[in-house]
């Protein structure tokens, strides 16, 4: 008999669509939930309290003008929107992918970006197709869109909890 204490983290519609990743310090974990075929949300759960941070909300709250293109709430063309926490860079920093596509065949017009985020701060973002990004990126010292070195620094954008 297993007597370990168990707590329910969240209801899951389709278990095989959930991806998980532990933080290196075991204090938190990421749960990516693709509840439907056209949407994926990413959460960071605190192990002690099981309080969660909705990373989609955090990004839109901190960087809504630019990031709204990835969500159908603000961009009706973004019918398929995926906010996916890719990996922990260390115990605080999470690399995320923002991607999706419009309706159409076979997959409509794709859009893609990436974000470096902590639990309370959006550090950097890279939206290669966004005009604001290109303006900022032109003045950035690095020129690659691939990888974190190409991300635009956003250290002034603090994410408000709640």
């Amino acid at each position, binding site marked *: 008999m*297993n*007597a*370990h*204490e*168990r*707590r*329910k*983290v*969240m*209801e*899951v*519609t389709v*278990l*095989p*669509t*959930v*991806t*998980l*990743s*532990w933080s*290196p*310090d*075991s204090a938190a*974990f*990421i*749960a*990516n939930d693709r509840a439907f075929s056209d949407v994926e949300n990413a959460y960071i*759960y605190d*192990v002690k309290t*099981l309080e969660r941070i909705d990373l989609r909300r955090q990004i839109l709250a901190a960087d809504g003008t630019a990031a709204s293109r990835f969500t159908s709430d603000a961009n009706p063309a973004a019918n398929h929107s995926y906010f*996916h*926490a*890719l*990996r*922990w*860079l260390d115990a605080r920093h999470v690399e995320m992918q923002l991607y999706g596509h419009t309706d159409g065949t076979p997959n409509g017009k794709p859009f893609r970006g990436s974000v470096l985020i902590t639990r309370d701060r959006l550090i950097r973002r890279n939206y290669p197709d966004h005009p604001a990004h290109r303006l900022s990126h032109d003045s950035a010292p690095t020129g690659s869109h691939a990888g974190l070195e190409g991300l635009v620094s956003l250290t002034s954008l603090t994410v408000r909890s709640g």
Partner: protein
Amino acid sequence: MLRMSASNRRKGLSASRDSAAHRRYNHNRNVRGACLIAVIAISQVAGQRGSVYLKPPFGIQNQLVSPDGAFALFGGDNALWLEDERT
């Protein structure tokens, strides 16, 4: 005294070459194996930083354990569960 014919000498040379090639093959295979083991070991030490899917069959038998071994995540009954391995 046995004398080796030219044909046999050629065969011997060929066998020697085959043996050398075989040794090189084994050596390369061992190096690849060692590299693979090293990569696995390093990835285990570094922890599970990339995200992974819950795999069927779901349940405690297929859990994702935290790097410090204190907690485990697993799926079951249409929910994601966290188990405290210390209790």
